């Protein structure tokens, strides 16, 4: 006769919102594809040398707009662009400014929004009033308009020397008008969370404000924010392209996808579709990947939609 032993519960896996979300997303095929695409794009931004060995600044006017007759081989794998620079090299090297710009804008906006939102929600009173007014003021000016206003101050004063200088102006302009959404979400989450029992308990136990804000409230507040981040990155890339078409933002001869796209649209009608198709394809693919990822993330993090 086997010994009766008390049933031992099998080791339970710790369920947390994040690991659950991760698991849900891992299973979806569209998320996997999106992730692969994004990794490729990041690789292109970080290590352009892996993808092309030509110098994108070596441009001969006579060789402008040579169509890529021999695909991916020969002197110019994708042909030359409107100025005679190797097109593949231009595309690849243009990835870094675009991605860096998008990432820096999102980091700054999120940080800004998070901190301001938490302070506003936690302290209330005049801090909240101040920050809420600031929110109102910035929301009322559309992002593109605000960017146009700020960028007009920088005209003619930026050089294309280093990456930082190239993207600094548009980065500042877009961050200044991009933090509001995050601030709002965070503030709402903070307001909800700060009256929960365990937070009140922590306060009674003597935890100081900062500890409460960042150890207890932040994990909750960050959830709605994270849900929107990937989609917003995609939106920033699109806005950068719009700025390039308007002629402000990243200035030639520095490249970015927006600059390439705006040049490409000029020539698309004249039979040089490749100048337009490649940057467009790259841009749409990347933004779509971000948006898919973001959509899936939002669904995975939203308990109501399970």
């Amino acid at each position, binding site marked *: 006769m086997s010994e009766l032993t008390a049933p031992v519960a099998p080791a339970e896996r710790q369920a947390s919102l994040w690991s659950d979300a991760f698991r849900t997303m891992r299973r979806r095929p*569209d998320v996997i594809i999106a992730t692969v695409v994004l990794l490729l794009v990041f690789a292109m931004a970080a290590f352009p040398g892996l993808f092309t060995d030509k110098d994108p600044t070596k441009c001969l006017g006579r060789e402008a707009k040579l169509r890529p007759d021999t695909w991916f081989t020969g002197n110019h794998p994708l042909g030359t662009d409107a100025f005679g620079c190797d097109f593949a090299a231009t595309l690849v090297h243009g990835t870094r400014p675009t991605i860096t710009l998008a990432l820096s804008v999102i980091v700054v906006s999120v940080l800004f929004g998070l901190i301001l939102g938490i302070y506003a929600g936690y302290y209330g009173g005049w801090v909240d009033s101040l920050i809420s*007014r600031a929110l*109102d*003021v910035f*929301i*009322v*000016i*559309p*992002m*593109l*308009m605000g960017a*146009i*206003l*700020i960028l*007009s*101050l920088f*005209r003619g*004063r930026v050089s294309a020397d280093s990456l930082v200088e190239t993207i600094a102006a548009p980065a500042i302009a877009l961050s200044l008008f991009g933090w509001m959404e995050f601030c709002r979400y965070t503030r709402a989450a903070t307001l909800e969370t700060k009256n929960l029992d365990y937070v009140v308990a922590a306060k009674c136990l003597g935890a100081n404000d900062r500890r409460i804000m960042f150890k207890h409230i932040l994990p909750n507040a960050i959830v709605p924010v994270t849900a929107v981040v990937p989609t917003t990155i*995609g939106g920033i890339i*699109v806005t950068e*392209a*719009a700025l390039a*078409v*308007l002629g402000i933002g990243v200035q030639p001869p520095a490249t970015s996808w927006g600059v390439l*796209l705006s040049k490409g*649209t000029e020539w*698309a*009608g004249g039979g040089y579709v490749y100048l337009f198709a490649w940057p*467009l394809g790259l*841009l*749409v693919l990347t*933004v*779509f990947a971000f*948006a*898919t990822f973001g*959509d899936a993330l939002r669904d995975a993090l939203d308990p*109501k*939609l399970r």
Partner: protein
Amino acid sequence: MGRYVIRRLLQALLTLGIVLFLLHYLMALSVQIRGNPAMLFFGGDRAPDPAMLAQVERLYGLDNKCYERVGDPCLLPFVDRLQAFVQGDLGTTLNGNRDVAQLLAIYIPNTLRLFIFATITLVVVSMVLGTWAARHRGKLIDHTVRGTTILADSVPVFLILLTYVYIVAVPLTRWARGIWGTESFMGQVFRPNYNPDYPWTTIIIPGIIVGTVGLATMTRLIRASQLENIGSDFVRTAKAKGLKPLRITIVHVIRNSMIPIITGVGFLFAFMLSGAVLTEGVMGIPGMGRMIFQAVQRQEGNLVIVGLSVSAMVVVFVSLVVDLLYAALDPRIRYE
């Protein structure tokens, strides 16, 4: 409720005041950094006589010393400007010395027409798609709708615009004119550029294109709200009563999903102005978006400040209306 409205109005006034000052500060900064826009008054290839330049500067209040120091908020000119606004004088432009109020009277209706069509497109299309996706949740249609709207949002609106103007519009117009004639509605609606002789007809397509901005967001909002409602008790009751699915959808589900639509429209209003900048530029519509863009480039202080303030006022007003409608539609919400 009344107290709430008054409080919101006061907040709105404060916001507008801050916006005005911020814009003024930015324009002053612009003059300090970029230099004197008074040259704009003269045009042409050559330089004006310094005497005349000084006169123009005096005319536009640009001769104040504060414009030499970078960062000076130029309070005196600000106060002058506010006084002028209160008296109804919106000032004149540097380029061509035109009355700002008159310009607004031309530009605002054009942009408004654009927005009307954009809003109609946005609401109708996202409603249809969102409802459809919610009804068939989880199935292929749902995924397709979500995928397509995300794709539509990934493509920048100016590309849709440029594609339309340069590839689609001309053949479409020629074809339509061949059948219906040049002066007909069909002959004019697909034109690649806005034509002031047909202000309503030629603004339909640009309006539709601007309306695709934010389609994915709106569709998602509607879908989510509808899913909430579909799973709710009163819908289950209606189904149990034996009402037809279509009637349930229209009468019960949609009406209750109006709230996110209204919120969404209010929020997207600001985005539409951004979309308008590009659309008006490419299709030659004399509207607010293009006016503000050019004014910023040329440092037309009066135009920028008045134009953006007007837009700010509209956004604030719309958001107030949205919040009030919110309370009207959902009896659970009451404002103190």
